[in-house]
């Protein structure tokens, strides 16, 4: 065999190298051109990570800027059992006191085959810092927001709460969820071998946008006053439920809204659904005598009666359409003013039947806002029941003027009384003062919104004259009188209906405003089925009204109309 020459050997090497380089080139073309998209995506997935940054939910504040709800940053403490299993007992012993968990159950969780197990939710930052100082390998800390309510149960029905996804479930949290919710952002980051972000290689960065802050018209001090007084009433009269609303009649702003039973916002799940219901907007009941303001003011507005017109109240029993109507006391002939402050059912019915008539009465019922929602910014509001005229029976015209055969929510009654207090303007109730951004710059401001004018200012003045006497010694609610102040109001005592029958259970209520001549505040008190003897609105709700009014007038520095002041002593000062 002829030995290979130098030339041949060189040719073989060159051919071999050429083939190798050609194969390499082909491989490169395949990887870099044909499979480029697929491989670059795979490489990016190995290297890059999309981190979502949730936007912080906005705060809810009272009218003075005091925080009522806010979102706190907390952590989820998780573990990678593939790392922790070998040392589970020791790690569990170290972690148990910080996580306030049982050591054995913690050790069980730390042992396993999965790569991720949650140990505890809602761990505060200070605790996380302490755990990090232990330098335990295999632990993971994830960001999470926790909604906190610094005042606990205060104004719980107004504020509402959120679910586990931080979405509003009830109250303002649900009603204004679109403003409160932040918008999540994201970052596309790269991590090094130790899992640390390589900040210089951050690819995309869309920052989260925090939610807007909602400023309520509610004043936490007035809310507290209402809560304390309602709690006292619950202890004294043991009703099934109770409601207090404090508002500004001239603007429709709600200063306080309190319900019983109540619940703690920081732990709503521990309370029954019944306790979480806002009875001010979602419960309807026959209003009883407080509704007499509608028939009397309507008839006066149409010029059909004056305060001095007199009606025979039939000594307490009057038969109409085959049914006997009763008064709580046997009254003879009463003026319209007396019908109001004595709260005569027969007198009110006669005004409805003989003067106003069904059609006009119905138009005033609608004009005062009954039968449709007030539009308050709370979810779950109901319209109440105001049957259309076609569905009235022959008895309706005698029952509706005294607040039967009609059902209203407490907020509807409050706004009807506010219309009388403010010169006849039916206003939309509002709980929202403004919506502000993180720098307290207002994004939206809420102005008083008039939805109707059922009666004239002149009629309001006449109504105030009569309603002032309700809280006088001759009226139905002398216990509602507030020393030094001119109070106007109306009592209500309505029998409850159970299974379609009236039963000897009552809704006791009082709605009033003060000072009567230039009202600054109006207060509604309603107790559902007080027990222990007293059940009249004047005896049960009247004192509660006074308790709230005394403290609120003092807090708001509303000057009294009849000051009990030694002027000589003042002059010396």
């Amino acid at each position, binding site marked *: 065999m002829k030995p290979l020459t130098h030339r041949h050997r060189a040719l073989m090497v060159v051919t071999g190298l050429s083939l190798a380089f050609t194969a390499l080139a082909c491989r490169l073309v395949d990887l870099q051109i044909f499979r480029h998209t697929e491989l670059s995506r795979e490489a990016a997935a190995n290297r890059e990570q999309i981190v979502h940054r949730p936007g912080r939910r906005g705060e809810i504040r009272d009218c003075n800027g005091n925080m009522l709800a806010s979102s706190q940053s907390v952590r989820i403490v998780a573990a990678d059992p593939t790392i922790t299993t070998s040392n589970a007992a020791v790690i569990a012993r170290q972690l148990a006191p910080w996580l306030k968990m049982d050591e054995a159950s913690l050790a069980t969780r730390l042992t396993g085959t999965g790569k991720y197990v949650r140990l505890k939710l809602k761990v505060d930052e200070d605790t996380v810092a302490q755990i990090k100082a232990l330098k335990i390998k295999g632990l993971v800390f994830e960001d999470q927001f926790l909604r906190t309510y*610094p005042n606990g149960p205060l104004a719980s029905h107004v504020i509402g709460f959120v679910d586990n996804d931080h979405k509003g479930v009830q109250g303002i949290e649900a009603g204004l969820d679109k403003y409160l919710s932040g918008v999540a952002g994201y970052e596309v980051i790269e991590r090094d071998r130790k899992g640390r972000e390589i900040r210089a*290689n951050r690819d995309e960065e869309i920052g989260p946008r925090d939610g807007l802050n909602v400023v309520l018209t509610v004043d936490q001090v007035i809310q507290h006053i209402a809560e304390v007084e309602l709690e006292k009433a619950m202890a004294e009269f043991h009703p099934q439920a109770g409601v207090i609303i404090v508002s500004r009649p001239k603007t429709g702003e709600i200063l306080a809204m309190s319900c019983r039973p109540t619940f703690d916002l920081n732990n709503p799940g521990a309370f029954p659904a019944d306790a979480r219901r806002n009875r001010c907007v979602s419960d309807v009941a026959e209003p009883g005598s407080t509704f007499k303001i509608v028939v009397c003011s309507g008839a006066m507005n149409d010029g059909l009666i004056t305060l001095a017109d007199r009606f025979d109240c039939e000594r307490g029993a009057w038969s109409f359409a085959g049914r006997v109507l009763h008064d709580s006391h046997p009254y003879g002939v009463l003026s319209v003013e007396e019908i109001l402050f004595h709260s005569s059912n027969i007198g009110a019915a006669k005004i409805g039947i003989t003067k106003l008539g069904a059609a006009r009465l119905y138009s005033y019922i609608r004009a005062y806002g009954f039968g449709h929602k007030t539009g308050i910014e709370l979810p779950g509001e109901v319209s109440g029941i105001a049957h259309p005229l076609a569905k009235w029976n022959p008895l309706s015209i005698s029952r509706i003027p005294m607040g039967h055969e009609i059902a209203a929510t407490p907020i509807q009654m409050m706004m009807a009384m506010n219309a009388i207090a403010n010169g006849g303007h039916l206003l939309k109730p509002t709980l929202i003062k403004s919506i502000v951004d993180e720098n307290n710059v207002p994004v939206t401001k809420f102005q008083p919104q008039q939805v109707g004018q059922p009666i004239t200012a002149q009629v309001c003045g006449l109504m105030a004259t009569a309603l002032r006497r309700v809280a006088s010694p001759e009226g139905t609610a002398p216990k509602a009188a507030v020393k030094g102040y001119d109070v106007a109001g109306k009592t209500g005592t309505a029998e409850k209906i159970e299974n379609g029958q009236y039963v000897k259970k009552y809704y006791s209520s009082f709605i009033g405003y003060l000072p009567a001549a230039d009202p600054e505040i109006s207060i509604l008190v309603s107790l559902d089925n007080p027990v222990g003897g007293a059940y009249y609105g004047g005896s049960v709700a009247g004192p509660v009204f006074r308790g709230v009014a005394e403290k609120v007038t*003092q807090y708001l520095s509303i000057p009294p109309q009849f000051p009990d002041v030694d002027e000589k002593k003042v002059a010396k*000062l």
Partner: protein
Amino acid sequence: MRFGNVAKSLFTCLAIATVGVGYVWQKNQIYRTGDEIKKRETALSAAEKRNTMLAAQLAQLKSPVYLEMRCQQANLGLIAPKETQTIRLLEPGPEWDARFLPAVQPAAAQKNGKLVKPAMKVVSSK
């Protein structure tokens, strides 16, 4: 001629080396700055979290429920004054003049012949 070529080659190598070292140095600086930014971002985030936590604690300490509880615990006996325990003084003006001037004028006139009107204040007494 040969020295010139050597010089050119050296200069080219030096330039390439400088560009290379500069590139590496710059990259290094970018990573260092990135790390600094990350540290500051973490510190800012921690400060913001602490701030919200403290704001919530402050709100809790300022809440009327808490203040009332503390008053009871400390047995301070603090309660809001009633309306009857409050004396409201009017701002100097026509209403003040009409109500109090007759009472003040004689005493003031005896002293220096000038009237001094008090500033508005609210005095509470138990």
